[in-house]
């Protein structure tokens, strides 16, 4: 299973990461690593523990056991706001944006979260052009420049998914955790998002959770297959496709 992989040091790595909810083992002994410029797809059936894994990496929930290292520094158990500040951005499985705010305001808040000196907190946003610039830049990267003045709630589902990613990008993260960014998208929107994922993978270490196997095999540089909370297999997409254990457990007729 072990194959040649980019030699760069991992940006984010887990060692024996586990999370139990009472008697339920959601994630058990997972060790994965994310590298700069690499898109790492995590696949597995529903209930395999993928989202719990992402929630531990983003600080939403604390691991029961194991380590999380960001650039070699132990960060397991840090709260979500600090993980974001340390450079771990995420998007949510269910669209989680401020529907009543403008598109720009959604992203501008994300940029503001990265730290504005207290003395400038009582200025209006209009007097902080730096924040607006960063927000516009993030919107440009996901292709939402044209609708930046719209109210977020009026966007199409696909556009809202893109906005979700722009909000993660506005914090200029090293690591991007994308939880099913294509969920509920039409074919055209999916195609656009697939292109965006490839682009993002060039500049960030990306962890992608996705159920659409065509997309996964099209964009992934490295894959981890999870089942029942544990890692079943990992390797390059070609190897995963050929892996009989994975075929039995998950891919079905897909390979």
């Amino acid at each position, binding site marked *: 299973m072990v194959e040649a992989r980019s030699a760069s040091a991992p940006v984010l790595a887990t060692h024996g990461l586990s999370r139990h909810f009472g008697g339920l083992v959601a994630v058990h002994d997972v060790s994965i690593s994310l590298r700069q410029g690499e898109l790492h797809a995590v696949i597995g059936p529903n209930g395999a523990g993928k989202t719990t894994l992402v929630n531990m990496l*983003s600080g*939403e929930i604390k691991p029961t056991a194991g380590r999380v290292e960001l650039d070699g520094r132990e960060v397991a158990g840090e*709260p*979500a*706001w*600090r993980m*974001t*500040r340390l450079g771990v951005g*995420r998007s*949510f499985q269910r669209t*989680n*944006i*401020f529907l*009543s*705010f403008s598109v720009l*305001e959604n992203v501008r*808040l*994300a940029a*503001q*979260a*990265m730290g*504005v000196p207290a003395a*400038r*907190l*009582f*200025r*209006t*946003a209009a007097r*902080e052009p730096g*924040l607006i610039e960063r927000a516009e830049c993030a919107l440009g990267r996901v292709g939402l420049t044209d609708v930046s003045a719209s109210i977020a709630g009026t966007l199409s589902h696909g556009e809202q998914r893109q906005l979700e990613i722009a*909000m993660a990008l506005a*914090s200029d993260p090293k690591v991007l955790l994308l939880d099913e960014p294509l969920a509920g998208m039409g074919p055209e929107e999916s195609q656009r998002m697939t292109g965006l994922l490839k682009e993002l993978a060039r500049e960030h270490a990306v962890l992608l959770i996705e159920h659409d196997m065509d997309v996964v095999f099209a964009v992934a540089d490295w894959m981890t297959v999870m089942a029942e909370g544990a890692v079943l297999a990992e390797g390059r997409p070609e190897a995963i496709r050929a892996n009989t254990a994975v075929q039995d457990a998950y891919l079905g007729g897909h390979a």
Partner: protein
Amino acid sequence: MLPRGRAVIVMLGLGAGLLAVLPLFVSPYYVELGTYALISAMLALSLQLLVGCTGLVSLGHAAFYGLAAYTVYLITPANEARSILVTLPAAVAVAGLAALIVGALSLRTRGFFFLMVTLAFGQMVFFLFHDTKLGGGTDGAFLPRPLLALLDWQLPLTRRQRPYAVYYVSLSLLIAMYVGLVFVLRSLFGRVLEGIRVNEHRMQALGFHTYRYKLAAFVIAGLLAGVAGHMWAMHRGFVNPELIAWHRSAEALLMILLGGLSTLHGPIIGALAYTALGEFAQAVTERKLLVEGLIVLFVVLALPKGLSGISLPRRPRREAPPAPSPTSPAEAHPHG
């Protein structure tokens, strides 16, 4: 939250103008009632920063109001009134410090638990003054009212003029408070508070340490409640534990509900209407609280956006200006 559209801003200006000329047309009794309404408006407005703006429902807000009033009493010698330039900063500082302590602890909880913890803190402050001789116990205590004085110079006021002066000081402070809060809400800080109200969890995921922002809002709200409490002491020259009792906190919440949760001027309209309502109910019946309860019930069921959410009929504009009657500030005095 902020006034939108010219119509609303014009109405607010008119309301302020009406309040400014009110004392010229009414008897001294109604000037005093108006002062009380303005003080209530300050209290409700300060609470709105937590309730309407940040989504934090506190049931202990009167503690900061009452502490400020008691501070005036505690720093004023029995037979020597002090300048407002001393009493106001002192009262506000004590209220703010108390808010910092209460907020730091209570903001570790959320929702229902936050409500209960703030209530518990409020009751602790209540019993501090109720059960000890610190401030005259259950009976309360009289105090020399703060003077409008600068160094050795004192505004020469006759006994008759004094209530008018206190009215205008209260009105000025209320307007300053409102304008100040408009700037706070428009700022980067205010945007964070709104984000927290809508979805705190998402704000944390974006990288905001929301606890700090909520604590800052809690302290600002406490400081402003302190201004209101100070003006109470200056207005009445009397303090008693009722100032701190949880009814007072609940009353401030009712004023917000009555005026509207979703606008900054709602609590002001709510406080003025509530005071007028109380006065009216007292005039026509002995069952004042019953009448008040019924009217509040009606408002909540029929006007979920409160009085400030009423729109004028047949207006093509999208912005809904507040209705002029029966909520207009002038109603704080019934037919003066």
